[in-house]
């Protein structure tokens, strides 16, 4: 019997070591590429080296004759079979999109697009034969530069006639959520402050550790698909829709998945083609991408130009913000490509009380790898823009960067607060998080050191970067998604099953790929049902086991999926009540549930959940008045978003002689609401910080003039390692969310969202006396040095 009463502390709030760690860290687990099936065949893709071209001919003869080759398949071969890849979000009803084929037939629109595939007995033979596929291309001029593409100077898809996919706008005056921005700007030009600035969100590559891999086993009964994906449920539905296979005959399994960061929130050409290869040959097939293919062909992220106008009174009170965005879709629309800027659209006002707001978005095609979700998806872009602007405003007014924020932010007593972009922030305490961060950071001492270095003309200057943020998490109320043009919903599903031996099986529709749901969900259920943490098993990622679900992205899993688990557990407790009453021969009204046990009030009589589970399993004593089953399912659609927030402070030393920036210290205080497992939260924050800092300092996908990815290997695409990052100090405040029963908010993206502007603000702060007001990202030594040279000239 599990001794619930002896458990010293509640599970929620305990830094439980993750159940997943041993197998993930040692690699003793099942990754898709480890899967070997009898008769398994291997696929190699032939990809276009050109960003934009017409395919004039493909000669497959030599490849077909190569050793071990089973089939060589071109786009023309499967033209009737391959269907078109879906985009799931129409930001406007008449959004333009090119037909997105899994395998090009006569036109390629980015370097890396698949033009043929080889199926062979071994991976080496497939690779050898792929080299022998002879494709003739007629090169076309590629549309590469985003602003020029927005002007339709070169057309990425000639048959579309334009590069503009959609134009979308939000205006607070029109929507009734605030005033008129143009009036605010006009007023500010007369005695106030107007800041006009342009920022570039460089193109990033999600760079998950495990390259994508797919195995398909086609039997007559079922098409079983293993895929390294964040979204097995999506993949199942889309295979059905695109390839016309009955949904009931498809099983998709996401085994352990080595990271995603949004990069595996996709339904991919490779998935479609592996299914086609397996279906055509009648044998299991595997495709595993190389790192080069992954960097080139898995979707990219960010890539926007942001044109901003901030209006303020002379004292630094912001009176209006106007944003014009151009967003690079790349060559095609993936699942939510077109909505990435939209997910940031409501966050440009950040934690502030802006009275007027206007935002315009232009979604544009280019001949580059398609973009889509990447950790933060829209919100890092918005946070970066406003937090950089707030620093510029502080400089203009001549007050401290924290002070300018305080003058504009929503005070804790003002929650719930309806924002100028139409959201309702339910809770928050920016004062508390900021005060704590300020103290942990030693803000005043660092400012003093900064002054000293400035005065002495030290070649190494110190900069202090401030960033505050909030984000909309817990994607998402289905009705909101519907109103924004998304085809799917945002609910989540869970099931809790009481096993005869007293163990508990939890099934979640979320699909973790490193987040530790097995641990956190176990903690939730252990507390709620009063069973031991070790007695809870969490199942996920297999559509035959977790039959309903909408998977993991958008910091949604705990706030939506976790709450569905709790709802299912609550139902189990409810269902157990009449059974307990019957077995204990008591009135249901006299029963109390506590510590995992139904007890008869005022007596020692009672039954634990384990005892009830066994009694239900036997059924011997049940009188049939209640259903003889404790298991329960729950589907939960969130009422609203949750709004984590935080204050991040970063000290950077900038070597003005070389332009090198070194982060000396980094303190963040995040408020992610109630914390289930502090260690997991800290891990998420650390990883998020690393990625956000990487955008500020290191990462950028660079293409040459012909559209070839220059940063096509980790040699060129610079990712930081542990030696490049400081030891983070991650602390928390805890203001519970009011939009879910536990008060949780979401933490997956927080670090990424807040850290990028903190770092760049620090660099600019260090160099402001040298005439520097901005450094484009990533702030490489070369760019910082160049900014210093230009600053000293101006």
């Amino acid at each position, binding site marked *: 019997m599990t001794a619930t009463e002896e458990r010293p502390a509640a599970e929620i709030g305990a830094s439980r070591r993750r159940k997943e760690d041993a197998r993930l860290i040692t690699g003793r687990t099942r990754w898709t590429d480890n899967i070997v099936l009898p008769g398994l065949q291997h696929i190699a893709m032939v990809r276009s080296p050109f960003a934009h071209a017409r395919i004039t001919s493909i000669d497959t003869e030599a490849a077909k004759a190569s050793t071990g080759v089973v089939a060589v398949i071109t786009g023309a071969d499967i033209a009737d079979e391959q269907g078109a890849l879906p985009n799931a979000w129409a930001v406007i009803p008449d959004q333009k999109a090119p037909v997105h084929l899994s395998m090009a037939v006569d036109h390629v629109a980015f370097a890396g697009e698949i033009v043929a595939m080889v199926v062979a007995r071994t*991976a*080496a033979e497939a*690779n*050898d034969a792929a*080299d022998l596929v002879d494709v003739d291309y007629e090169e076309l001029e590629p549309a590469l530069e985003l602003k020029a593409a927005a002007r339709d100077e070169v057309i990425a898809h000639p048959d579309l006639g334009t590069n503009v996919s959609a134009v979308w706008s939000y205006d607070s005056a029109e929507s009734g959520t605030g005033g008129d921005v143009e009036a605010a700007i006009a007023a500010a030009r007369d005695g106030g402050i107007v800041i006009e600035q342009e920022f570039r969100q460089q193109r990033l590559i999600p760079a998950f550790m495990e390259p994508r891999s797919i195995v398909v086993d086609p039997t007559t009964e079922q098409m079983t698909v293993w895929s390294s994906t964040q979204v097995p449920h999506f993949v199942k539905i889309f295979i059905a829709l695109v390839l016309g296979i009955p949904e009931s005959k498809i099983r998709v399994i996401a085994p352990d998945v080595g990271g995603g960061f949004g990069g595996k929130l996709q339904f991919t050409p490779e998935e479609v083609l592996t299914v086609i290869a397996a279906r055509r040959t009648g044998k299991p097939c595997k495709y595993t991408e*190389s790192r*080069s293919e992954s960097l080139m062909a898995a979707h990219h992220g960010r890539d926007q130009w942001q044109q901003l106008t901030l209006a303020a009174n002379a004292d630094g009170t912001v009176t209006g913000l106007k944003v014009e965005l151009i967003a690079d879709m790349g060559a095609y629309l993936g699942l939510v490509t077109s909505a990435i800027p939209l997910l940031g659209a409501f966050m440009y006002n950040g934690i502030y009380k802006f009275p007027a707001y206007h935002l315009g978005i232009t979604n544009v095609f280019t001949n580059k790898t398609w973009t889509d979700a990447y950790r933060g998806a829209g919100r890092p872009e918005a946070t970066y823009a406003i937090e950089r602007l707030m620093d510029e405003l502080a400089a203009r007014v001549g007050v401290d960067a924290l002070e300018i924020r305080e003058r504009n932010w929503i005070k804790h007593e003002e929650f719930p607060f309806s924002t100028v972009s139409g959201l309702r922030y339910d809770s928050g305490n920016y004062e508390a998080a900021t005060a704590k961060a300020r103290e942990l950071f030693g803000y005043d001492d660092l400012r003093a050191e900064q002054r000293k270095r400035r005065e002495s003309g030290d070649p190494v200057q110190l900069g202090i970067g401030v960033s505050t943020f909030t984000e909309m998490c817990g994607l998402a109320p289905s009705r909101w998604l519907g109103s924004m043009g998304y085809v799917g919903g945002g609910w989540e599903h869970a099931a809790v099953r009481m096993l005869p031996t007293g163990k508990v099986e939890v099934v979640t529709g979320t699909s973790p790929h490193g987040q530790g749901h097995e641990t956190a969900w176990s903690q939730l259920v252990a507390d709620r049902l009063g069973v031991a943490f070790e007695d809870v098993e969490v199942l996920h990622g297999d559509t035959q086991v977790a039959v309903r679900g909408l998977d993991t992205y958008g910091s949604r899993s705990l706030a939506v999926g976790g709450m569905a688990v709790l709802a299912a557990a609550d139902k189990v407790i409810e269902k157990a009540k009449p059974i307990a009453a019957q077995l204990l021969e008591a009135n249901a009204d006299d029963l109390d549930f506590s510590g995992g046990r139904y007890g008869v009030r005022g007596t020692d009589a009672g039954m634990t959940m384990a005892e009830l589970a066994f009694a239900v399993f036997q059924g011997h004593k049940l009188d049939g008045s209640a259903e003889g089953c404790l298991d329960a399912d729950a589907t939960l659609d969130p009422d609203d978003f949750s709004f984590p927030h935080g204050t991040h402070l970063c000290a950077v030393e900038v070597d003005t*002689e*070389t332009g*090198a920036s070194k982060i000396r210290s980094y303190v963040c205080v995040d408020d992610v609401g109630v914390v289930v497992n502090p260690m997991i939260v800290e891990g998420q924050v650390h990883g998020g910080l690393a990625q956000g800092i990487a955008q500020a300092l*290191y990462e*950028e996908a*660079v293409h040459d003039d012909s559209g070839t990815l*220059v*940063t096509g*290997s980790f*040699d*060129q695409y*610079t*990712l*930081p*390692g542990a*030696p*490049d990052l400081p030891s983070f100090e991650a602390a928390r405040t805890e203001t519970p969310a009011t939009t879910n029963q536990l008060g949780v908010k979401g933490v997956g993206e927080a670090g990424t969202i807040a850290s990028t502007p903190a770092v760049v603000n620090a660099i600019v702060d260090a160099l402001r006396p040298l005439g520097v007001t901005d450094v484009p990202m990533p702030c*490489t*030594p*070369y760019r910082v*040095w*160049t900014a210093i040279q230009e600053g000293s000239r101006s």
Partner: protein
Amino acid sequence: MIPAAFEYFAPATVDEALGLLREHSDAKVLAGGQSLMPALRLRLAAPEVIVDIQKIDDLRGVRDDGDALVIGAMTPHSTVESDPLVAEHARLIALATATVGDPQIRHRGTFGGSLAHADPAADLPAVAVALEASFVIAGADGRRTVPAAEFFEGVFSTALGEDELLVEVRVPKYTGWGAHYEKFNRVAQGWSIVSVAAAVRLDGDSIAEARVGLGNMGPTPIRATAVEAALVGQPATADAVREAAARAADGTSPVTDINGDADYRRHLATVLTRRAVLAAAGTA
């Protein structure tokens, strides 16, 4: 990716290896594989034959040979990095080697492989040039010795013939010299944007002799002779060294790439040279 098919030999002696190289016209020597394997996997290189020289024990190790140190071509970076003879007589090599890649790469990659590969951004070529090392090359007609200044001919190109093997490198002893290796890169595991290798012998407070090598300032490593000459007889002070280091970029032709243009690299060369020389003098 998977390399194209090749025939594989693992000879046990230098002579055997040389025989194989003569016999096969499209053969590549495999040392630690840290540059060759990526090239094979990306199919940037697809030789018909691989001659793996890992089994030739004679090529591994560091020995004292009178007024020179001799470092076997197959000595792994990790050995060089911690070798007591290197620490005593050619500390600059140990310092530079410690900055190569990461521990895994330094356990596999070799001293000779790195030099034979002749990547302009690599760390050891500039050191070899600065220290006036000489390269012992074995071929059909026996052994020949090539000075560092003549060994490096261009980007990935050296005095090594197709059927020759680099067997060892002789480095004059710099016992008692100060040394410093200044590597400027974006991340700890990254290649250098510019690097400067400096060794200095002091006579009292002034610089008696100096050796300065520049990495990634042109297709081949460059000896900053103007700086060396300007340093001799000068006090090891910030001002004097700054003045000498200002000549570091003389006669260089660095590339422009995503990490910086040629002007930036020239500027870096002067800053890093000043820092390297001062630091080297500080350890003398």
